[in-house]
């Protein structure tokens, strides 16, 4: 039994044409036992910046709260919204501070630059190694399934509409396959584009025991 699969969960983010999407499941469970189906794993860190946290549920909550604290101080000092790349460095620093006793989470960041609206996605490992990609990032217990789905479905410069379908579909499909991330609604926290953000809530059609 691994610490990372004790609660289970998965998040992913994809990059499209002038927009990004981030999605997660909503299951909170203790090993095989489901406890809640509305557990939040994606947190807004700015108008156009979200972080999704997969891993141990207690650390998901603690890290999001501690991060928000640091972010608030940043915004008060700088007087502006944080850029996604800077935010990634902030998360990396927070996680590496605990190098030899880490938070058991693997974050995924998706957002648009507050001024240029340039789309940005990245993921980090549990000790804060950042990884910026051009296409998609995945994290969680069914990461391998998500890699497979994303690699086959993602295309460069996908328009917003096409995006809305690709992201959810790839989530549902691997959710069905992973017992620690199924049987609950999952949350596509949103397609974030420069004029607005859109949050969708969709259901998985099957359940697996």
């Amino acid at each position, binding site marked *: 039994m691994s610490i990372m699969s004790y609660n289970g969960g998965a998040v992913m983010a994809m990059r499209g044409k002038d927009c990004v999407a981030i999605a997660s499941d909503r299951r909170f469970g203790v090993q095989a036992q489901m406890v809640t189906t509305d557990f939040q794993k994606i947190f807004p860190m700015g108008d156009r910046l979200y972080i999704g946290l997969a891993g141990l549920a207690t650390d998901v909550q603690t890290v999001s709260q501690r991060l928000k604290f640091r972010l608030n101080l940043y915004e008060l000092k700088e007087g502006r919204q944080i850029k996604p790349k800077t935010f990634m460095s902030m998360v990396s620093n927070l996680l590496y501070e605990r190098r030899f006793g880490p938070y058991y989470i693997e974050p995924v960041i998706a957002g648009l630059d507050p001024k240029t609206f340039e789309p940005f996605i990245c993921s980090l*490992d549990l000790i804060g*190694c950042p990884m910026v990609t051009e296409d998609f990032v995945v994290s969680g217990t069914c990461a391998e399934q998500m890699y497979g789905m994303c690699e086959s479905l993602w295309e460069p410069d996908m328009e917003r509409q096409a995006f809305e*379908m690709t992201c*959810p579909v790839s989530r549902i499909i691997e959710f069905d396959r992973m017992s620690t991330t199924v049987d609950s609604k999952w949350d596509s926290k949103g397609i974030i584009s420069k004029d*607005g*953000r859109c949050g*969708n809530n969709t259901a998985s059609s099957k359940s697996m025991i």
Partner: protein
Amino acid sequence: MFLTCFKKEKKQKNIACIILLLFPWKDGVVLGADTRATEGMVVADKNCSKIHYISPNIYCCGAGTAADTEMTTQIISSNLELHSLSTGRLPRVATANRMLKQMLFRYQGYIGAALVLGGVDCLGPHLYSIYPHGSTDKLPYVTMGSGSLAAMAVFEDRYKPDMEEEEAKQLVRDAIAAGIFNDLGSGSNIDVCVITKGKVDYLRPHDEPNKKGTRAGSYRYKQGTTGILTKAVTPLDLEVVEETVQTMDTS
């Protein structure tokens, strides 16, 4: 070779399986690296950057635990910049080497950073390899990582002292390619960094022998494939950044 040492139940991104190498040619140093980062048996990053900036004249390749190489090089780079401002001189490679080895030794090998440090300073081109426990070697050419044997084989065959820049770049490229194709832990592109007195050529990518194929069919899903339960659209205000007023002549 370090992948086996780091057996852990928690996931950690390793660049353990990479090839780093550099060697001084006539008046400079050439560093090379592949671009694959693995998480267990899965490729986590297909195009990561393993050649890290230390100072304008010194660059460092990192193998081992990805976060450790990233953070260690950043810490030493920062300290070296402060040191350089204090001395008023361009930093020396030996200084960076000393700082890195003293930090790594302090952590007794728990910081899994295997580094290959290269640069050109007032005393010429230098090349060091630094191991996670803090030992260092100063050599004419080095390789590190899981693909190091494949790369070293190419080096031992074709290396000669005082090569020209193009010859050196080609040799480095071939050595990395040997690792990319023969070692499972290395892959994707070849990054090269050529450092000479007063100039740095960071070629990322220098060569892309593993371009992704084009997809034959379209796998797009129709709108409505996934049922949406609830939808909440939040329009965001766009900040006024620039306002220009153009007057119209209505006479």
